[in-house]
Structures are given as C-alpha cells and as structure tokens.
C-alpha cells in the first residue's frame, strides 16, 4: 500500500494534502495497491471527511495534539509504517514535511527522495523526477529498495476531487511524551506594512539581477513611470533592500496580477509558487536558460540595465543615474 501523511495548520487542511492523494493514487495504481491516508492531530474527524476523495481506500485518524509537532509526527508515522508495512510513504515537501520526513526515513533506515515532481513505479523500482541546480535541469532518480519515503512538491499534482467511501480507522498511536524535545509556543505573522501586493493588478518584480541596492532607483523609476506595484524575490528582502511585505513566493505573498514582469529573477520553485497564477508573465533575464522563461508568456533574453532604461523612456519617465 501507499501511505500518505496529510498536512494541516491552524485548523485547516492544507491544499497539498489533496494533491498528495492524487500523487498517491497514481503511484498506488502503478503498483496495483491501496492508498491509505493518515491525518495526525487537530480536528481529525473533520479532516477525515475532507480527505475522503476519489482514490482513497482507508483514512487513519490519529487524535493527538492540535498543531504539528515533528516528534509526534515522527513517532506516529513510524508506528503506522511498522503496523501497515506500506511500500512508499508520501508527505508534502513543505516546511513541516521537511521537519519530520527525514527523521522517519532515518529512524526506519529507508531511502528518502525529496521534492518529487513525478513518480512512477515499475517492477519494484520507484523512479522519482526532481529538479537540480535551481530548476535548470530535471533528473530521474531510481530508488532500488522495497520501501522509501518521498516528499512531493506542492502545486504539481491536481487536488483530488469527488468523494470516496473510504474506511475511517482511529489509529491508537503510543506517543512517548518524554521523548519530545521541542515545543511549539505560538505563531507570528509578518507585518502587513504599507501595501498588499496580493491585490495588485500590475506588478514589476525585481530579483538578484539588480546586483546592488544602489541600482534599485532604476526599478523604482520604472514603477513610477508605469504605475506598477513593486515586488521582489526573496534575496532582495533578505538583504533588507525592500520590506518583507514585497516578497513574492512560498514564504512571502501569492500574487495573481494581470501582468507580472519578473526582472533579474531566475524562477526558483519557491518564487514561482507565489506568481505562477498571474495572467500574463513577462521575464527579463540575461540567462536564456533561466527557468523563469519556462513559465513566461513573453521573454526578453537581455540585460536589465539596457532594457529597463529604454522602457522607462517609453513611458516618458526619468532614467536615474545608477
């Protein structure tokens, strides 16, 4: 069987849990086996109802705690694996998935493959497709083992739909509280600040291609001349050149403007997660192989320091000296 461990946070099942079902069902079909889903902690009965989608055979509910705790997830998943003996264990390749899946794999001495974008099983060999080198290449990784732990990339499989008639089983896990060495004490949201980029219709977004903080006025002049909303990739915010509320991506904001112009941004998966829903995507990048062009509708394979000044002039703006 395939065992998929669902994810929830602060009372809500996360979308990736339903994507996990689709990925898990595909894999289960490949190996001709059943798909079991486990949900650990929180309002497990309500979660189980939502997880009861096409393709799910059994749902294991583990009523222990409210929020994610990696120690609990590790212990429970290990017990589930020992009890059910699944071929493959799937978890989301999320921040929390990566906080417990490697521990499960290590504890059980199983191979681990992270951030899968494709899964096929054939004659006992699992093949996982995953990116390397900042998504410049994709690879196929063969896993030569009867059991493995795989984390799957969010947003790559469609969420499972419909309703199944899955059997719901309460799994009686034994959690050794004394072995838990970390305690979640709360949550904190990033400050909202002056603008909400997720509401913007037209975004000009800048990345590490800008090189220096001293060059930012060039982009600000473009924003000024076009009336766009300014956003950025993560390194710009890490460097404190722009505040956190301007960051697009997995750990920033998800934006869906009519037009998103990515300037000097490579298109790392965590950035793309925040902007791939834009209507029209334009990329300006010197690297013709930058992954951002794979999702762009329009591209300029060129130097931002040459293109942006021309663009400012097109709109009658003042080109600053940078």
């Amino acid at each position, binding site marked *: 069987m395939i065992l998929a461990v669902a994810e929830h946070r602060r009372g809500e099942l996360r979308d990736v849990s339903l994507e996990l079902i689709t990925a898990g069902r595909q894999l289960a079909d490949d190996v001709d086996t059943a798909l079991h889903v486990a949900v650990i902690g929180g309002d497990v009965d309500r979660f189980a109802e939502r997880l009861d989608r096409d393709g799910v055979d059994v749902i294991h509910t583990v009523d222990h705690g409210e929020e994610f705790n990696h120690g609990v997830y*590790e212990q429970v998943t290990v017990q589930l694996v020992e009890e059910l003996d699944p071929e493959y264990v799937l978890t989301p*390749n999320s*921040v929390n998935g*990566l906080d417990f*899946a*490697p*521990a499960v*794999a*290590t*504890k059980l*001495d199983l*191979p*681990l493959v*992270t951030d899968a974008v494709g899964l096929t099983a054939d004659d006992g060999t699992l*093949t996982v497709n995953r990116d*390397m*080198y*900042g*998504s410049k290449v*994709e*690879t*196929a*990784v*063969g*896993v*030569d083992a009867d059991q*493995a732990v795989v984390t799957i990339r969010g947003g790559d499989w469609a969420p499972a739909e419909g309703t199944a008639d899955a059997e719901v089983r309460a799994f009686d896990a034994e959690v050794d509280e004394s072995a838990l*060495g*970390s*305690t*979640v004490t709360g*949550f*904190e*949201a*990033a400050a909202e600040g002056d603008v909400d980029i997720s509401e913007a*219709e037209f975004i000009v977004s800048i990345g590490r291609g800008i090189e220096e903080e001293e060059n930012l006025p060039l982009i600000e002049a473009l924003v000024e001349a*076009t009336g766009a909303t300014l956003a950025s990739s*993560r*390194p710009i915010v*890490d*460097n404190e050149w722009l505040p*956190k509320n301007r960051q697009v991506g997995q750990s920033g*904001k*998800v934006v869906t403007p*009519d*037009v998103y*112009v990515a300037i000097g941004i490579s298109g790392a998966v965590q950035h793309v997660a925040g902007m791939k829903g834009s209507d029209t995507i*334009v990329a300006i990048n*010197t690297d013709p*192989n930058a992954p951002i*062009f*794979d999702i762009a509708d*329009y591209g300029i*394979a*060129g*130097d931002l320091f040459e*293109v942006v000044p*021309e*663009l400012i002039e097109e*709109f009658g703006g003042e080109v600053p000296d940078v």
Partner: protein
Amino acid sequence: MKVLVTVKEVREVDDEFEIEGTEIPEQYLEYDLNEWDDYAVEEGVQLQEDGVADEVVAATIGPERTEETIRMALAKGADRAVRVWDDALEDVELLDVGAKARILAEVVEEEEPDLVLTGVQAGDDAFGATGVALARKVGYEWAAVVNHLDLDADEGVAHVHRELEGGIDELTDVELPAVLTIQTGINEPRYASLRGIRQAQRKEIAEQSLGDLGLSAADVEGELELTDMYEPETESEATYFEGDAGEQAAQLADLLRDAGVVDA
C-alpha cells in the same frame, strides 16, 4: 559551548550549458559556498562574538578542491575545519541524504558539539533534508527552516522561529543539543576581511577518510541512482521580443498598453 557548522561547496551551472548523460560537464560548472551555509556560518560566528560559543568548527564532505570553499568559512571566522573524503566517495554519483547523514553523524560524535547549524538546503542537489536526518541519526533535537535564533545556553534551550509558508513563523523551543537548519535572511553574512583571509591560511583543515570515521564504502553507497538528466519541460511557449534593447522595450511597452495596465 561548541558549534559545528556543516558547509557544502555547491556546483552552479553557467548560463549556457550542455547535459552529457546524467552529468553537466565540468566546463559549464562553477563552485561556490552554498548560500544557506553562508548564513549558518555567520550565525555560528556571531554566537562566538556574543560570547555564547567558545568554538566554531566547520565540517564538509568533499574532495580536495573544496578546501578553497572551506577556507571561506574559516576566513569568516570559523576556528578550524574537518573535511571528509575518500576514494570510495569519488565513485558515488549522487550522495544521498542517508549517506551524508551517516558521515556527518560520525563527525558530530567525534566533536560532540552542543549545537549543529546546517543550511536549509544545498543549492545544487536541493534535498533540503540533511540537517534533520543528521539530528535523528545522532539523537539530537532539531528544527527545520530557522529564520531567528535566540540561544539560552544556561537553560539549554534554543528559542527559534521556523519560517512556514505564507510569511507565518512558528515559535518553537528546542532542547539542546540540537541541529538547526538555517534559512537565508536570518542575519547578514559578512564578507571575509583581508585579515580573515590571511588568518584562514593558518587554520587547520583536518582530513578524514571513511576508515578514520569507522565507516566503509558500503555505508555511503545509498539506494538512489541518477538515471536521467534533461531540460525541464516548458509549461508555456514564451514569445521572445527580438531586436536591440530599444526595440525589445518598445514591444514590451505595447504589450503593457494593450493589456490595459499602463495608460502612459
């Protein structure tokens, strides 16, 4: 207390490159200190400057060439380094998380640090998993994707923020000894000073083979095999604006006007 920082020399691919089999040939590759590890080194060095840590040791698994990268960590303030390499590793095409954790676990057991800092992920293989696997292997506590660290050495607790999706931080107390995987932005990594670079030349890089660590080739073989490498499929067929910068800008300006997002 003692801090161990794991550092990886990562391969970066040039703008133009080719794929040969399951490899990118050497001439298209450049090498650098992993971005995430740069932040981990800085965090360790700051703990030392704040008087919390007495020693910061850098550890890497890598061939002789990686000494250059290790020296960068030393130039930024790490006290000494351990480099693990072996002929047996030469033949391993994809060093998987399990193998890396097994090797680093031996280093941790020898060094007995109170705190291990790794990067969230290596920019090239991007497993994002070695730190947590290592923690479990050596029986340390851990926290993945840490973007804020407040260490209470007396209490033996690290108060951390874990950066979850969507700009939400999880506040967690982690008992020491622990492994923390460090996220970019947690600090501002310094540039190595000239003095630091000079001092780094005299700092020790101890070389260890698998045998020195009590491991054998079988421990690092792993069950993963790279079977294919190819250019990712494009999801959309991008239309490229041709011509010089002026012509490209003019076409983009037309597009923006047509889309109705700019009036000017």
